[in-house]
């Protein structure tokens, strides 16, 4: 089919417009990256665009010498290592009974409402804070894990995936005398790798990006996760001389400034997301839509 002139010109402008949108998402990050590799002097004059000026890795070396940065990075990795497997286990265990029909599991409605209601009504910040305080989790590592151990929205994604597993497979397992646990772990789980990958990646991001819990419940900055620490660095002016506690850092201080050090930390904190992003993208369109669009 021959394309008419208006259609051809629409196509041209459409491609150009979408290209601009993509740049709009990309350029801020490129700019941050360029600033982080520039000298403090170049950054302070506002001359850095999309390419570093007076290339240097001083800002990264400066950050690497910062003990608090390392301590909080370790806390962040620990919370991911402990939190994500627990999330996954609880999501799978919870989604299985809720994926049953009411005939198969008579109390299902009650539990569905129990989980649904927790999404509908929020007790509020202060009762939540006082509850966490009352159960003795303040200043404990587990305060970063337990309160968000059951992401109900991901349970819904998982259970909708479980419901698509052919009925024949379940019935065959039942005839073979498999109990619920065996059915779940030998039949459901191996068939749900795409959904499980999605849940793992989403939980990884949830844990990696959480900052408010650390800020709220953990007093010692060295025991906060990276994002909580970065919150206190990135969202207000800070004095770079106070961060320089180490002789190595004093040597670097003439090449860096507040801005380049902030940008270096922004970029480092984004690396894990970039690393898992290809996997995430492969899975999420498929895995997420089952939970969302089903309608």
């Amino acid at each position, binding site marked *: 089919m021959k394309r008419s002139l208006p259609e051809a010109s629409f196509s041209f402008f459409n491609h150009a417009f979408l290209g601009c949108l993509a740049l709009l998402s990309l350029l801020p990050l490129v700019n941050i990256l360029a600033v982080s590799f520039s000298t403090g002097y170049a950054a302070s004059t506002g001359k850095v665009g999309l390419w570093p000026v007076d290339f240097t890795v001083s800002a990264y070396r400066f950050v690497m010498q910062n003990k608090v940065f390392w301590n909080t990075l370790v806390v962040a990795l620990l919370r991911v290592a402990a939190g994500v497997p627990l999330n996954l286990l609880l999501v799978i265990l919870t989604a299985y009974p809720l994926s049953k029909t009411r005939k198969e599991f008579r109390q299902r409605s009650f539990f569905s409402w*129990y989980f649904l209601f927790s999404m509908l009504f929020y007790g509020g910040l202060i009762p939540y804070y006082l509850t966490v305080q009352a159960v003795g989790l303040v200043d404990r590592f587990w305060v970063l894990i337990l309160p968000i151990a059951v992401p109900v929205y991901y349970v819904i994604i998982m259970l909708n995936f479980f419901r698509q597993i052919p009925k024949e497979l379940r019935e065959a397992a039942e005839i073979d005398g498999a109990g619920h646990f065996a059915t779940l772990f030998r039949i459901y789980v191996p068939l749900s790798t795409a959904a499980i990958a999605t849940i793992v990646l989403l939980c990884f991001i949830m844990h990696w990006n959480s900052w408010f819990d650390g800020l709220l419940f953990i007093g010692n900055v060295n025991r906060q996760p990276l994002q909580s620490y970065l919150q206190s660095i990135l969202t207000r002016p800070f004095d770079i001389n106070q961060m320089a506690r180490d002789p190595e850092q004093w040597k670097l201080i003439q090449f860096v400034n507040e801005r380049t050090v902030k940008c270096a930390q922004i970029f480092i904190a984004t690396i894990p997301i970039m690393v898992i992003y290809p996997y995430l993208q492969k899975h999420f369109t498929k895995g997420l*839509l089952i939970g969302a669009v089903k309608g």
Partner: protein
Amino acid sequence: MTGRWLNIRKNWPLFVMLAPAVAILFVFSYIPMAGIVIAFQRFVPAKGLFGPQEWVGLKNFAYVFSLRNTGQVIFNTVYISFFKILLGILVPLTVSLLLNEVRRSWYKRTVQTIIYFPYFISWVILSGILFDILSPSTGIVNSFLGWLGIQPIYFLGTASVFPWTIIFSDVWKNYGFNTILYMAAITQLPQDLYESAGMDGAGRLRCAWSITMPGILPIVMLTAVLAMGSILNAGFEQVYNLVSPVVYSTGDIIDTLVFRMSIGSTTGGAQYSLATAIGLFKSGVSFVMISTGYYLAYRFADYKVF
């Protein structure tokens, strides 16, 4: 009776599976719900949650709503979240329709990959990025505006501009990811409609207008109805990180006010009861809105959460 007993005997593993999640939600979701009683007390933290507190009825609510500040904060919240919801639907919808017209699949995929990305970055990191690129002296955005001959704009420090900085940066973060939903809805439309329209001489734009648009209207309505529930949710994580006292008049929202009045209080006079009263107002309205949204979605689109 025996039927039910048999059922439980066969299904006991299901209860075991649910137990940990039920317990965790009980502690971290249901106990705090009961904790809203604080809003009706003169709460003294030393006496403990559910301790022997003095009951004051609706006094906290009366006091909170008599403050002029409260009305302003509620207005700010509704203003910001209304435009977030509106643009948060229109922008991804438009972009989905445009993406659908791209025939070069590598181009489409590349654009999608890039515009999804900001969704996965935390508001802490994005705030750091926004503070940097929007800075009036060294930021790249104002450098660009200067190149166009426009005076520097203090996006995060001008009360009249701040809410729109919040709205646009939120839309910027999320629109790409939200196109997934509309793109999926578009691909599910029956292809033969396009074929027969093509045979009748309809061009691509005509098809987009007359087939695609009405075809995905139901899912657009569904997202709009479900989004109603967040009308008092202007985005704590974002606003808390970006707001400063100079823009409180337009940028302070319910959640940031609650936090500042209570746990985040820097003056020492933490007002737990008053803050909980405002928080409960928000939770109550949100509850009604979300429930209504779900009910309408269920009634008219057969949408079920579980």
